């Protein structure tokens, strides 16, 4: 019994230690990012690196957003992400509604789901090479619509699997009751199914938004000017310059992180479900 007790004690000591180490490894880099963003230019040139800012200032934020004009990129990001969410959800519902609510052969349903899953393995860099040529031909290079199209495509597999999960959970009888009462399919969908599925659809939308927000490769390749460049492309521009302005770069990093983290507070219960195509459910 005493052995058991000491095992438990050793375990909880180990757990505390491990959680502490993890806390430092995750906390400190974020601390350093925020601290750097709060330093003034003068402090960056101090002879020794300060671990705590001596005169915190928001100058770097106004420098990034206003002087460098990054608020335009922020606006582009929001437009692109929001449109992506709408397109992906609409197409996703058009595909998953018949699959889950209407009589279709099981083979078709499994086939569509498997096909969507295989798209998850599609390497973006291999797709962007022909897509780039298409975008040039259609003359939508450096236009937000080029990004919206490809983002919607790459988020679709995930939307299909998530929406399928949410729709199957809603009993068919509820819609049938409405149909028996004389409602049309459309009314039953709009008035009965969609309100019930709303939390799930919202969650899928939030997650698609954060994915699109993070996307970098397509945005780097398919845009050239502030007409369509998204925020991550702007961040990249600050990083690869010859002389890096550390506080501006850090402020841009903080801004890029902020929105997904805020949205995550709303969508937190669904993130892991989304990332694993609905296999992992949080209760």
């Amino acid at each position: 019994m005493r052995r058991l007790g000491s095992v438990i004690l050793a375990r909880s000591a180990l757990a505390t230690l491990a959680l502490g180490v993890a806390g430092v490894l995750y906390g400190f880099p974020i601390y350093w990012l925020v601290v750097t963003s709060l330093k003034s230019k003068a402090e960056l040139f101090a002879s020794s690196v300060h671990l705590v800012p001596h005169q915190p200032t928001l100058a770097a934020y106004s420098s990034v957003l206003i002087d460098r004009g990054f608020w335009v990129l922020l606006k582009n990001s929001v437009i692109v992400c929001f449109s992506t969410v709408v397109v992906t959800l609409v197409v996703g519902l058009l595909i998953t509604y018949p699959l889950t609510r209407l009589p279709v052969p099981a083979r078709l349903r499994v086939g569509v789901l498997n096909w969507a899953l295989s798209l998850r393995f599609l390497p973006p860099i291999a797709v962007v090479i022909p897509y780039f040529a298409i975008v040039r031909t259609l003359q939508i290079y450096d236009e937000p619509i080029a990004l919206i199209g490809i983002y919607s495509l790459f988020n679709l597999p995930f939307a299909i699997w998530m929406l399928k999960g949410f729709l199957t959970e809603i009993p068919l009888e509820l819609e049938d009751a409405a149909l028996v009462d004389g409602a049309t399919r459309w009314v039953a969908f709009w008035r009965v199914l969609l309100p019930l599925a709303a939390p799930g659809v919202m969650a899928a939308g939030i997650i698609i938004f954060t994915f699109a927000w993070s996307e970098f490769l397509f945005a780097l390749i398919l845009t050239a000017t502030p007409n369509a460049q998204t925020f991550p492309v702007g961040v990249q521009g600050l990083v690869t310059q010859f002389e890096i302005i550390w506080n501006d770069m850090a402020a841009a990093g903080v801004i890029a992180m902020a929105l997904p983290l805020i949205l995550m507070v709303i969508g937190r219960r669904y993130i892991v479900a989304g990332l694993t195509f609905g296999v992992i459910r949080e209760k």
Partner: protein
Amino acid sequence: MRAGRRRLSRDERLAYLILLPALAAVFAIVTIPFVLVIIQSLSTQDGTFVGSINYSRALGNPLLYEAIRSTGVYTLIVLPIEILLGLGFALLVHRTVRRVGLRAAIYVLAIMPLVVPPVAIGVVARLIYAPGYGVLNVILDRVGIMHQEINWLGDPTLAMLAVASVDVWQWTPFVYLVLFSGLQTVPRESVEAAQLDGAGGWAQFRYIDLHYLRPLFVLIIFFRLADVLRVFDHVFILTGGGPGTATQLLSLYMYRVEFKFFDTGQAAALAVVVLVSFSLLYALIARVLPLERA
């Protein structure tokens, strides 16, 4: 009876009426680039047909094999570490942390890295590893371990480790979350029965937990592999593929061929080769994936 059947067939017709246009559109959007990339790979920039020259150029380029090697090394560093660390943490929290509040707090903290843009994490990594302002050297110096400036991003091996560390930082929590929720499906009775039989922690893991976690390992490997093979963002920010070509993973290499050397023929040939080999890889893994396909 007849009315019922007629309604059924009307529903079926509605199903195809909605489904077919949507699927056809998506199918076309996916397929057109595939066809185009095959055409590109068989022709020169101006569209003359050249047969397999682009393929022999792409496959004969030693840089390709370096890129494949780097991608392999990166995968072999990142996947085992993420799985082992994630598993270790999942077991530790599952067995020692009982307080619901603390578990919930760990959950929220663990999903944070998953939603943050890799570009921003690349920025953070830069602030840590870069020469001059990088805080890692500063800390090593203040603590008194090292007084010499280490060029983390200038040495091929260290640069690879630095790039891999970013992946481990961002994605270990994902492995943890999946495995932790897997551990919660292990029935309490079988654990208690095993404990009564005197099974230690290891035996419990080996004979009970592992049985429930096995399908989740397949799942983790599938999703992580899909992402690791396409890694671009944080490497582009942190090292840009350097020093030399030490961290030039497959995506970065293909990016360079198309958008720095403007060699579309070769890039398209590479894309075709990558698409084919990824499809084969996908076919291998997808069969054993524990997804609800119904």
